[in-house]
């Protein structure tokens, strides 16, 4: 292989804005461009996967190829994804190497202002392959292992824990759920596999953040979490720092299983650079009296499509989605929630808040289903949109289907602005226009930000301050 062939300078840059930059990358294992059966064989061979996974991937490829783009309801922008120009597998073995000097100053400044710890900045900017917290991860892993908790990457999960992994893998989100779940099923790599045994309550949140490596921040990560009867877990992924991606397509699949009386909370904070298509499928199954909560914060990206769902499969199950979306210039946050009530006395709750800044566009899509012959199902949905500038856009498209006379659903949505009089009032008290705007926006999402762990909520506040700076004047 000559130097040329190992160098990737990809990605048509839409705009030269914060976070849109690319570096030459060097990879040891590389499946090349485009997607075919041989790509899949290559991935399976490199990863040394069992035959059932190979068969699973190949079946998924067929489904992916057959499925049309969902442009009959989603944005036409999806047509701009060129699947032939994407590299579907870059191995863990080699990381892109960049020098800190290559990182643009505004990016360094962003890290500074967000208060991202020194040692993490290099990783986030793609300078270092491995974030220096492997030790922290090992400690966490060892600590929870004492309780019988399995916390490994998905490849290890399917190889070493097949008996737990396989029965649920692809069961919460079938390969054919949508075009992008099929794509992920064909080429997935990275992501976590977690199993919490019955009755075990994991005291501290498990964080993907402390075990960052290329696999976890991969393009097609696959996560499966099973929390057994009466057990409890909180899992967190992502961080508020902008993620400087050179790959334009990110398509993850996350499956959650909460057995009887279990509680599972999945927290995501993501801030993509504005060249990324972030098309993610996330769903959980809640069994009897179990609870699945998605707490989600989406910032950045060119287009994010993400509708976390909960299937309440047995009586007494509860599902919740709490989400914050922030769309700035050139960004489209198309997010929402899916609540499927499949048993009596199930309860779901959706709270979604979006902020559109500049020419940003935020879309909420919701689905609530209460089928026939059930009783006592309750859904509450509240979605509020805040528009900052006159070119900002927001859309809301919920669909609520209720059958039978023993249920209650309620959907409320509102759109508001920060009025000129509010800004004037705050300015009279000495705040600059930008500070006044930040304060209002933070106030708008404040009750949801509280749902995030402390360190995230502090960073989120700073991030909102940053995003608001360009929006006034």
């Amino acid at each position, binding site marked *: 292989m000559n130097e040329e062939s190992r160098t990737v300078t990809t990605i048509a840059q839409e705009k030269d804005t914060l976070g849109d930059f690319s570096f030459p990358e060097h990879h040891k294992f590389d499946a090349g461009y485009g997607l075919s059966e041989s790509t899949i064989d290559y991935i399976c061979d490199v990863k040394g996967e069992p035959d059932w996974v190979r068969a699973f991937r190949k079946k998924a490829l067929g489904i992916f190829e057959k499925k049309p783009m969902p442009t009959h309801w989603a944005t036409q922008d999806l047509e701009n994804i060129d699947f032939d120009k994407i590299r579907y597998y870059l191995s863990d073995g080699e990381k892109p190497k960049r020098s800190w000097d290559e990182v643009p100053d505004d990016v360094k400044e962003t890290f500074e202002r967000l208060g991202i710890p020194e040692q993490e900045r290099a990783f986030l900017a793609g300078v270092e392959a491995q974030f220096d917290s492997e030790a922290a991860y090992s400690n966490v892993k060892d600590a929870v292992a004492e309780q019988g908790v399995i916390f490994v990457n998905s490849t290890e999960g399917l190889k070493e824990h097949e008996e737990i992994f396989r029965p649920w893998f692809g069961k919460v989100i079938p390969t054919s759920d949508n075009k992008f779940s099929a794509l992920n099923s064909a080429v997935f790599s990275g992501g976590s596999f977690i199993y919490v045994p019955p009755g075990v309550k994991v005291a501290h949140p498990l964080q993907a953040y402390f075990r960052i490596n290329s696999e976890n921040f991969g393009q097609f990560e696959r996560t499966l979490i099973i929390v057994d009867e009466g057990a409890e877990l909180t899992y967190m992924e992502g961080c508020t720092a902008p993620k400087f991606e050179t790959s334009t397509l990110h398509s993850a699949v996350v499956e959650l299983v909460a057995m009887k009386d279990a509680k599972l909370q999945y927290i995501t904070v993501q801030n993509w650079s504005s060249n990324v298509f972030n098309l993610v499928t996330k769903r959980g199954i809640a069994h009897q009296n179990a609870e699945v909560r998605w707490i989600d914060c989406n910032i950045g990206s060119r287009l994010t499509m993400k509708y976390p769902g909960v299937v309440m499969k047995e009586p007494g199950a509860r599902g919740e989605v709490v989400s914050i979306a922030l769309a700035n210039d050139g960004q489209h946050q198309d997010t929402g929630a899916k609540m499927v009530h499949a048993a009596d006395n199930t309860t779901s709750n959706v709270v979604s808040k979006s902020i559109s800044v500049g020419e940003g566009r935020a879309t909420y899509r919701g689905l609530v289903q209460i089928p026939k012959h059930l009783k006592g199902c309750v859904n509450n949905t509240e979605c509020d949109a805040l528009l900052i500038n006159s070119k900002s856009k927001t859309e809301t498209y919920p669909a609520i289907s209720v059958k039978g006379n023993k249920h209650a659903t309620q959907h409320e949505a509102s759109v*508001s602005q920060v*009025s*000129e*009089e*509010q800004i*004037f*009032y*705050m*300015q*009279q*008290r*000495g*705040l*600059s*226009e930008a*500070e*006044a705007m930040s*304060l*209002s926006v*933070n*106030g*708008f*999402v*404040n*009750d949801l930000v509280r749902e995030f762990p402390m360190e995230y909520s502090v960073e989120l506040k700073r991030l909102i301050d940053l995003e608001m700076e360009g929006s006034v004047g």
Partner: protein
Amino acid sequence: MSLAITDLHAEIDGNEILKGLTLEIPKGEIHAIMGPNGSGKSTLAKVLAGHEDYQVTEGGVLMDNQDLLAMEVDERSRAGFFLAFQYPVEIPGVSNANFLRAALQARMPAGEELDAVDFYKEMRSRMESLGIDQKFTGRAVNEGFSGGEKKRNEILQMTMLAPTYAVLDETDSGLDIDALKVVAEGVNAMRSPGRGFLIITHYQRLLDYIVPDVVHVMADGRIVKTGGKELALELEEKGYDWVREELVVA
């Protein structure tokens, strides 16, 4: 040192409201402006604060020899100018405590952080003296407040921000007598040689509790009469028509 307004003309949507207003409030004094509805009292307050809807066409305002009108709204505030609004707006989601903290933080030199413990201590004690329930700290600014609560909140902000010059725009309107006394006590406690007040009111009532050094009568965008505190009583007795008639005679 004073807040000196000279020949101020201002208009909104092409309609002139202030038509050559001149007024000087030296530090340490309390001035009151009284006048009938529509005389331009509230316009004066908004123009001093820098509201965008109003255009100043002539004249000037010097605050301790600084050109007030050349400053942005928030610069004026940080330079020591305070306006207690006639109709304070509601700011959903932003708690009183966070709002005041942000306003105080904006006055700190770059790199310095407000001490949160001291801040809360001071706010609590000031709330207590103004008879404001402690639970208001966590509530959104003015949201769901009664008229009286909003006005007290304005005074709380004034005492916390400790301005050099404060304009109270009809702070007395809509207040019952108890609330009025609380507001007056708040102002009187702040009375000092280093601070000037301009109290805009339609009624003499407030001036029973905040005794002004000088009373001005405003009509048709100008100060038409200036006198001592007894002028307010005379106005109350004879009504604004008396001023108008006198003007005509003059």
